[in-house]
């Protein structure tokens, strides 16, 4: 009787520990996602400067302003509380389009590229992009850890009976690996 009681208590404590670890890992992944969104939204800081530049310099392509507007719209869709890697991928694609066009124009027109305001803006964009990339890396690691914690034994048992959490999606940039011949078979 006493032995059964001790075993039951140990099992309950074990379940509580595993349950809390799963919840903790999910919350960490959510926090990492929140950081990604925060730094992604900080990119909006440079948008007014970009539009101002476009107004002042005719060297920019005519559709540059449309790309900037599309980026602004895609960023506004992002939600800190809801993990949506597709929306994030959309923002990243649009942001890459804007910043690549900006860089290309600055390189093609040296008199524009050498101005202080453009140099400063490029540095700021680069810094923000690095922070978003780092935040995404941290998010992906948190997701991997969370997914492991709901799939590995004995966490999967606790998850299927108690926490009932779904796997999270890793973020990956579209257009980076699709052209590769090699496809992993997992």
């Amino acid at each position, binding site marked *: 009787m006493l032995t059964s009681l001790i075993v039951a208590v140990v099992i309950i404590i074990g379940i509580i520990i595993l349950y809390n670890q799963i919840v903790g890992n999910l919350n*960490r992944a959510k*926090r*990492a996602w*929140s*950081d990604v969104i925060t*730094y992604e939204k900080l990119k909006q800081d440079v948008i007014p400067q970009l539009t101002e530049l476009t107004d002042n310099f005719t060297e920019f392509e005519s559709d540059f302003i449309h790309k900037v507007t599309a980026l602004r719209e895609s960023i506004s869709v992002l939600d800190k509380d809801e993990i949506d890697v597709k929306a994030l991928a959309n923002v990243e694609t649009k942001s890459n389009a804007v910043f690549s066009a900006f860089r290309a124009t600055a390189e093609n027109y040296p008199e524009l590229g050498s101005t202080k305001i453009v140099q400063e803006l490029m540095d700021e964009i680069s*810094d923000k992009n*690095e*922070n*978003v*990339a*780092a*935040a995404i*890396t*941290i*998010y992906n*690691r*948190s997701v991997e*850890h969370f997914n492991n914690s709901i799939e590995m034994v004995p966490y999967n048992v606790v998850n299927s009976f108690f926490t009932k959490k779904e796997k999270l999606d890793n973020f990956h940039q579209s257009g980076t690996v699709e052209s590769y011949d090699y496809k992993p078979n997992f």
Partner: protein
Amino acid sequence: MQQNSRNKILKAHLSELKAHAIMAKSKDDIDKVAQHILQFSQRSAYKFNHSLAIVGFVLAGLALLLSFWAQMDLSYAQRNWMRIGGFVIGLACIVNICLRFASVNSIGNQLYVRAVAIHAGIERDYSFDGKTYWRELKSIFPLFNCGDEGQKITKRYLGGVDLTPFTLFEFKYVNVTTQYSTDNNGNSRASKSKSTIYKYGMLVQFTHFNYISLNAKRFSEKWDSASRTFNKLFKVRCATEIQAAKFFNPKVVLAFADNFKFIKSMDVNAQSVACFELPKSIFPSQVKKPSLRKQADFVKQLQHPTQIPMLENAKNLLHFINQNK
């Protein structure tokens, strides 16, 4: 006579090398020493002539053996004196040979470490009193508040990155543990055992960087990041959470978790002096050293000394902090 002078010449040459190992300041100085070694190696090898010591050792051994030979007409006291004399002379001869061996190795090592330090852009500093310096540091950083006896800063190197001066230090202290045991008769006995421990690190004078400590309890506020790896490696304490959050943006967090995980602790005082505890491989004396007995290889390595990867990483860290603080 000639052999005696060979030892004298080698001894004098080693003294010169030792002086260079302390005085050399630049790559040119090291190149001059390398040429000096090459010239010397054409005349003589870096080996002492041990003939006298070997003869002494053999004679001492003979004396020891004869003292046990019963047919020798010697008194008990004479036999004892022969044994003691034989043992002492034999031991002295072996010690002499070992010391000469060690002196060649030691001077070669000192010279190479000097070359490595010059190559890494740091300079050995002798102008401090180890005990006083330790007391000074102890009053600023709790890292130095450990050990039971023999605490002192044993070595110090000075350097700089981006106009940020740093000091590498080797901190030595002794831990004494007392164990009590009771024998079968009920008598208790206390035995002390001592262990010498070394800590290595870097003191850095930053500007306006006095609000974050890692794995050190300098501040009361705690902060953690979204990265599990970072949180496992570093316990961050800060003056205010907003300062920590501002400094530790995702780029910095990722860099600390991936590139700067070698930091054992980082403490800062109000004057922005940071004290990093780092692995021992940061010190030039920890590099693998070539042997002075193989002159060609030694000279080649002396002229192109190895880098200290840990020191280069630490320099990158300082550069990174300066850029992101």
